[in-house]
């Protein structure tokens, strides 16, 4: 990596667009987030610690990060399969399936949550089948994961799909003609070049899951210490007019998310350079 301001292209307008981008990002992202941080400084370190280390808040951090991670991993795996199917094969109704993938993007998340809760509740279609087996999805932690998988799916598919589509078949053919097995071709040739896109999809799906609120509150039982997600803790604190406490939790969430996304980006850059 070269850490310098260099003209990335012979096209003119670099200075103008860079200036615009920086201003735009500052106005839209940095200033509101800066306000959040500033609001938190109303608390002393002790008070801040008391808010964050409260067992109920800690339990919600565990759930939010844990469930989001599980959901992102599930999405990574199945999203890859869906993206692969959609870009490599032709079948009847492919266009419809392709369009369906985007649905979680557009659907209001509350609608998704209510629909999922209705289906997975013990009197719902799937819930009624699962209940005799002793499996409870709605109103449990599992329900949280299910909702997060639902909303996160398109992020993986849509980031990976174009990369697979552009991937040149010649590489696979060359690999096969050189005597590689199917698995070797996949793990040594295809996967490394998909890695950056997969990581981006994973990161997006994970980040989206962390911030999700609308669908979760309908399918989770929202019990303290058990199934309360961090955004619910924040909303609860706001309902109690505890603005400072809410911002403190929000700040921790922000910093943790930033660190995680930063790490994923770093890994992604590393793997891209390695695969080149």
């Amino acid at each position: 990596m070269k850490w310098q301001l260099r003209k990335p292209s012979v096209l003119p307008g670099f200075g103008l667009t860079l200036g615009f981008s920086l201003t735009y990002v500052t106005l839209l992202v940095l200033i509101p987030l800066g306000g959040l941080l500033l609001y938190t400084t109303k608390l002393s370190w002790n008070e801040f610690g008391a808010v964050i280390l409260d067992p109920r808040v800690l339990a919600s951090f565990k759930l939010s990060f844990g469930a989001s991670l599980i959901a992102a991993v599930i999405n990574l795996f199945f999203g890859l399969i869906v993206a692969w199917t959609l870009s490599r094969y032709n079948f009847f109704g492919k266009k419809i399936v392709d369009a369906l993938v985007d649905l979680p993007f557009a659907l209001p998340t509350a609608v998704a949550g209510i629909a999922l809760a209705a289906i997975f509740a013990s009197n719902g279609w799937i819930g009624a089948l699962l209940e005799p087996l002793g499996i409870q999805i709605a109103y449990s932690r599992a329900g949280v994961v299910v909702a997060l998988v639902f909303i996160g799916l398109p992020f993986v598919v849509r980031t990976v799909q174009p990369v697979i589509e552009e991937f040149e078949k010649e590489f696979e053919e060359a690999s096969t003609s050189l005597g590689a097995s199917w698995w070797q071709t996949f793990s040594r040739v295809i996967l490394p070049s998909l890695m950056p896109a997969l990581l981006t999809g994973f990161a997006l799906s994970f980040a989206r899951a962390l911030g999700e609120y609308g669908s979760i509150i309908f399918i989770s039982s929202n019990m303290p210490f058990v199934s309360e997600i961090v955004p619910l803790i924040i909303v609860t604190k706001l309902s109690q007019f505890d603005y400072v406490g809410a911002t403190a939790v929000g700040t921790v969430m922000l910093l943790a998310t930033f660190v995680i996304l930063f790490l994923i980006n770093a890994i992604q850059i590393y793997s891209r350079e390695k695969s080149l």
Partner: protein
Amino acid sequence: MKSLKSNLFGIAIAVLALVAPFIHAADISLLNVSYDPTREFYKEYNQAFAKHWKELKGDNVTVRQSHGGSGSQARSVIDGLDADVVTLALAYDVDAIAQKAHAIDTNWQKRFTHNSAPYTSTIVFLVRKGNPKGIKDWDDLVKSDVKVITPNPKTSGGARWNHLAAWGYALEKYGSEDKAREFVTKIYANVPVLDSGARGATNTFVQRGLGDVLLAWENEAILSINELGRDKFEIIVPSVSILAEPSVSIVDKNVEKKGTKEVATAYLQYLYSKEGQRIAAKNYYRPTDPEIAKETAANFPKLKLFTIDAVFNGWGEAQKKHFADGGEFDKIFASIKR
């Protein structure tokens, strides 16, 4: 030129004279920020008030309604939602607007009769048809095979009344705070889902089929039965419950800015009129007007009601002791920690 000018002037006068009566009939818009289960009631009441105001002053009043959890509605007003009046689930939420945003006079409770609570309600039980678990009174809620649906008292005003009703019952029956805490803890141990608002809890119980008993506002319970059929649910009235006094106030800061103080005050005052009281009763709120109360007595079962002032020394103290961070509710959940 001159003649044209005077002509124009004449025309302007003529136009003004024509339009004047219409200008006089001003269109006034009020925003009533309320809590979840008042939706149907205010829909009907707003029409009645618009008619009343039209007859009285000749102006057209349209009242917009906003509904949600009582606490979050109060927060919206604190954050600047330009409500002319608030009609919330409990006095504490109005107090919060008065204290945090200084948008309401702190003396608000004295401005209308009955502590600014024009109608009252109480907490009853909604059970499934035939009452399969045989739920009769609060004591049945602590049985280990009974699942109880109640919202989260941190976010729902109704849930706070539920919590305090149970606590007040146990306090009277078993005689000590410790016993009351133990009793309420047992109830919460039977709660499988904590929704954030009263409507959400009703939906969980009714649509998702979760739980054996729903702790609900009396009006919300009757409404569910009427809408969903008497063949599915029935109401159980416990021996003792709390007298819930939903509070109303004008939002001084906003009505002064918008110049709607007179009509906003009249809007709330009209809630106390015979017609307002009758509409409240029709929507299953208990009227405070003795005459209307007598008239509609058949709709409201008699039960022993205690007030929050008598048992908990008012909302300020109840809120701090029970629902603030580290209060009784938090302690109870820390002890359940399943």
